[in-house]
């Protein structure tokens, strides 16, 4: 087993503003292995998209990576300058955005967009790229690919467009796909298809996937491991089965409790009181302390570091109190 495809260590993303520096992503570390799907969940504003954007180097100024490192197959990429980073984007890291209706340029045929991307990164002739684009479109499940290549984006439905976006993300055979809410804008029936497609294609190719979503259902279906984010930090990270069935962090517990089940024996769903703090007002100590039912004195003073609980890593003082089986 070689090293992980993506390795993020102590990543911090900051936004300098007039009222001081906002820390959107705070000291995040995770790895993704080849062929593995890491789900990143959290509420809006938890910093999950920001993490994805930082990995692919598309933070909009004044946002910047303020610390830590991002390594792709061991090569450090967070400190690369514009042109070197551009060669990695699309080539070694593919990206899928949330809204397929707006991800494609409406004025170019989908084939042109795929061919353009391939030829930017790979030494291919127009004809080779075209043949490859047709194969790719059939692979993502578009029927009559050789004709559809010359269609414009508006001639596709939303689900079909997300397939095209996926083909675009995969066309240069990247090692990592960052999928930012890839199914959120789609019908539920289409969501499952797209999720299955992402999973199948990446498994076949051994592509690592960072799947950003707020939908625990999608995570449970797709991901191998999951990172739960809260207020810019990772609250809990571990195997999906562990995190879903035996959550350790009070926030993860609350999150799981708020998912309706078909058995539905309980009368009410558990809900987490309050809402996530704004970046300008993150409390001292553990950021979850105002909402945590089990918070105690230490939670208000010190930020908890991640510790192992079973196979999961949890950033919670309660977990630290239980016997530690390893150090991160």
């Amino acid at each position: 087993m070689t090293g992980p495809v993506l390795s993020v260590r102590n990543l911090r993303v900051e936004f300098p503003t007039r009222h001081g520096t906002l820390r959107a992503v705070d000291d995040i570390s995770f790895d993704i292995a080849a062929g593995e799907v890491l789900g990143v969940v959290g509420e809006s504003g938890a910093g999950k998209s920001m993490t994805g954007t930082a990995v692919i180097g598309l933070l909009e100024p004044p946002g910047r990576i303020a610390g830590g490192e991002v390594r792709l197959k061991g090569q450090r990429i967070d400190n690369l300058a514009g042109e070197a980073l551009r060669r990695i984007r699309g080539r070694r890291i593919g990206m899928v955005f949330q809204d397929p209706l707006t991800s494609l340029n409406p004025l170019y045929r989908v084939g042109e967009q795929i061919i353009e991307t391939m030829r930017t990164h790979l030494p291919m002739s127009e004809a080779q790229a075209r043949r490859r684009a047709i194969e790719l479109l059939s692979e993502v499940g578009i029927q009559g690919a050789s004709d559809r290549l010359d269609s414009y984006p508006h001639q596709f439905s939303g689900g079909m467009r997300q397939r095209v976006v996926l083909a675009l993300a995969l066309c240069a055979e990247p090692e990592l796909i960052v999928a930012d809410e890839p199914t959120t804008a789609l019908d539920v029936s289409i969501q499952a298809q797209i999720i299955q497609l992402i999973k199948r294609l990446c498994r076949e190719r051994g592509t690592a996937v960072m799947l950003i979503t707020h939908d625990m259902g999608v995570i449970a279906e797709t991901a191998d491991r999951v990172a739960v984010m809260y207020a810019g930090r990772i609250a809990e990270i571990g195997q999906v089965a562990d995190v879903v069935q035996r959550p350790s962090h009070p926030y993860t517990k609350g999150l799981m409790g708020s998912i309706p089940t078909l058995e539905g024996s309980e009368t009410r769903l558990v809900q987490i009181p309050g809402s996530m703090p704004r970046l300008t007002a993150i409390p001292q100590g553990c950021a979850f302390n105002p909402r945590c039912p089990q918070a105690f004195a230490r939670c208000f003073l010190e930020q908890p570091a991640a510790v192992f609980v079973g196979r999961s890593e949890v950033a919670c003082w309660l977990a630290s109190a239980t016997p530690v089986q390893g150090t991160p």
Partner: protein
Amino acid sequence: MLAFAIRRLIEAAFVMLTVALLSFVLFRFVGDPINQIVSQDASLEERIRLREDLGLNDPIPVQFGRFVWKAMNLDFGVSYQVKQPVITILMDRFPATLELAFAAALFAIAIGIPMGVYTGIHRHSMLSKWFLSISLIGISLPTFLIGILLIYVFAVKLGWLPSYGRGETVKIGFWKTGLLTWSGLKALILPAITLGLFQMTLITRLVRSEMLEVLRTDYIKFARARGLSNRAVYFGHALKNTLVPVVTIIGLQVGAIIAFAIITETVFQWPGMGLLFIKSVQTADIPVMSAYLLLVAFMFVVINFIVDLLYVAIDPRIRLAGSGAGH
């Protein structure tokens, strides 16, 4: 596509008919044309015979039909003042105006679009702020003042460029061009800048705001995420998406350039149609005025038609929506 073009052509024909009606009405209501043609002491019989000869006793629709038919054969009558066929006079002046308008539009587009793209991409750079300040001047100063200022600086003070006229011209068929001689080109520079400056600033500001808009879209973010070069992102993906509104404005502005040419031509004594029009207004030379009206309307219609076709060429979505009521 063909149906689209045909529909637009039919619409254009209606517009032209309407303008022709106005132009015809102009003839009928600005005094009795007989009075304009014959001398003061012509006898009543002479007048009646002339009236009969000119067909002025026929029913109005017949006369209008004849007017349209003649106009389609480029027969706009004879100028009251110069006693020459109007078409001859116009064709003598038309190349001068068209070359001026073309040069002004070229100047406006060739400078305006790059400036707009630059200021759109480098929003906060010093140079952008300079460009925008300059464009503010272009928008706020009236044409005649810019013309006079340019004459003062480049013709009077520096003596680099002529202050009036077209320079030497070369005749190719009926077309008298100033583009082939050195003095003709030199004479073109100041009037073209004067005429095009407003349009240039307009295009700069329009392209800039459209670029800002487009650069925020998801497909630009996605294009970056695909690792395309900056050039491909800005010029391939962003600029093309700004073009529909820009082409619309340029199309309308080319019409405005021809209309505004009247002022510029007066300032620079440019022997074009604008100058001719001013003189014919002063002398109530109705055939010239009505022919000018028709010609300008015709050019507007042609430009609009081209703009419509350009839309279709730029934006594939319009092909499907082509059955709509237009823009």
